[in-house]
């Protein structure tokens, strides 16, 4: 059992101790699911993988933080020139409620670029059979992957909001007062981030699950988030109509515009008041989208042959 390793060991001091058994703990299914969840979250940002895998997610995350960094710069200049920060804040600078509309394009691109990394790779390289041959079940695998991606999206949403929050509070002359002023926005920020994560994450992961070829998956994901929005905008622009007013709900981005307005308590799309649906409609549409995509995605992995 202690035969020296002959080839490939330049030092000559490495000894093959032979194969040894493992008597330690086996943490089972729950642990495997948690590990896959965190692996999915990390790989979405390219962590634990090569440099090339990090470029797209990090670039898009930086871009998504661009609007809040811009606001931060304005606030710094305002503070420097002695103007009251609160005055500047009052002067039409976007707040937490404007973050969704100014970052949604980057979120869309992030989904298109990263969702196929999780589901496409496993299918292209035949790795699924290695997962399914382990302590996991097919549903465990699917949900761990999806919720890892959803969590990555929630982080992508919260990051710019956090930067904005820190800037608004620390650059204010009355830090404690500013903290108290901004704190009540937190539930809305978190709620919107989770909704965006679930709906965009669920839909893009479902498309990625059915489209192992990466290029098609990217195109499909971007198309699903962009095209219905254009359709809805065109129809709304034509004026009020019985069906057209509801068609806005086929667009994930419009639905999330609606939930954003309701959660932050701001008016939505004042130019087209007729396109405003009842508050509950936006949440119902988001819920249907989330549950529907989860069901379709689970179906894919329950039936796929490995």
């Amino acid at each position, binding site marked *: 059992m202690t035969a020296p*390793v002959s080839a490939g060991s330049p030092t000559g001091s490495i000894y093959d101790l*032979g194969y040894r058994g493992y008597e330690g703990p086996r943490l089972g299914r729950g*642990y495997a699911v948690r590990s896959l969840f965190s692996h999915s979250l990390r790989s979405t940002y390219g962590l634990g993988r090569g440099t090339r895998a990090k470029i797209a997610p990090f670039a898009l995350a930086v871009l998504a933080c661009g609007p809040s960094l811009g606001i931060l710069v304005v606030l710094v200049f305002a503070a420097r020139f002695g103007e009251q920060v609160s005055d500047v804040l009052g002067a039409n600078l976007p707040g937490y409620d404007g973050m969704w509309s100014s970052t949604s394009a980057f979120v869309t691109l992030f989904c298109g670029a990263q969702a196929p990394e999780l589901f496409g790779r496993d299918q292209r390289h*035949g790795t699924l*059979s290695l997962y399914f041959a382990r302590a996991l079940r097919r549903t465990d695998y699917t949900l761990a992957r999806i919720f890892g991606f959803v969590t990555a999206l929630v982080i992508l949403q919260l990051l710019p909001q956090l930067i904005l929050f820190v800037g608004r509070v620390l650059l204010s002359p009355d830090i404690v007062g500013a903290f108290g002023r901004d704190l009540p926005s937190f539930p809305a920020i978190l709620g919107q981030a989770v909704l965006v994560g679930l709906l965009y994450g669920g839909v893009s992961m479902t498309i990625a699950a059915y489209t192992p070829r990466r290029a098609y998956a990217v195109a499909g994901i971007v198309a699903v988030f962009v095209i219905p929005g254009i359709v809805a905008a065109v129809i709304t622009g034509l004026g009020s109509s019985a069906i057209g007013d509801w068609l806005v709900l086929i667009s994930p981005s419009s639905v999330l515009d609606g939930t954003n307005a309701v959660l932050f308590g701001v008016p939505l799309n004042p130019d087209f008041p007729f396109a405003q649906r009842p508050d509950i409609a936006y949440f119902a549409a988001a819920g249907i989208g989330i549950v529907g995509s989860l069901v379709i995605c689970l179906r894919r992995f329950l039936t796929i042959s490995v």
Partner: protein
Amino acid sequence: MALISVRSLTKRYPGGVTALDGLSVDIDRGIVGLVGSNGAGKSTLLKILLGLIDATSGTATVFDLDVATKGTDIRQFVGYMPEHDCLPPDASATDVVAHFALMSGLPKAAARERTAEVLRHVGLYEERYRAIGGYSTGMKQRVKLAQALVHDPRLLFLDEPTNGLDPAGRDEMLELIHRTGTEFGIATIVASHLLGEIERVCNFLVAIEGGKLLRAAPLGTFTEQTGFLAVEVEEGRDALAQHLAAAGLEAFVDGKVVVITLGDARPYDLVRDTVAELGLPLVRMEQRRHRLEDLFRDAPAGDGVWAPPPDLTAPTPPPPASSATPPS
């Protein structure tokens, strides 16, 4: 109870293909060869035992646990090396094997330690930090074996482990399987269509054909058959066959070679002398490897010139499946 117990297992794929047809067999510890030609149902059987696919009817147990309901519990202690490519090319061997150690429930530190150990065991050293995309087929097969071993399974399923390997790579892989199975006592099932390879590492054989059990018996009873000697000459094949037949050997022309049925006798000298006598250009003489087709086919695949003696096609009567138990 046996390690693996299969009862009347049937699998029909949508589209009407029957991969398994009422298969019943008991498999116990040891290195077990699962042999059959392509499409015989080997991979299907392994996948059902792993819970990767459901059987159409029948039951199967592994470690006395039902594969249909206790899949997760079984798989914690089973390693699986699939037939097809299953490794992401942009990850390193260390990353992949450590990741699948976690997926088998090993704590992080143990996963790292086991990964280093098991990669060393399969013979991957410095290259284990490089991306798998740059590996040779032999190295990829080693990584596939390593990920199946990393959680120290009680039972190992290897599906065509020598696929795509050159002769040296095959020898090394078979040696690895042999060491893993004997020195470390991991029960191993090796599915292969190459009987010649499998008989080098296994001590028990399960032969299936068309989804049915042909035989399950210790290796020895399979290899009592003496096989054939193939003589390749550049010309004068018919004359050689006639002369050998006249000398009392069973010889026939099969394509470019003259095939001689070997009984207990070893007529190598006679063949050599006959070739020399006829002045034929001899290219090679080789003992034909046993192939499943040779042992189990009902009629030779050749042109029908020759029919093998009945004792070749029907070796010994197959024992009842349930009594088949290899020595452990």
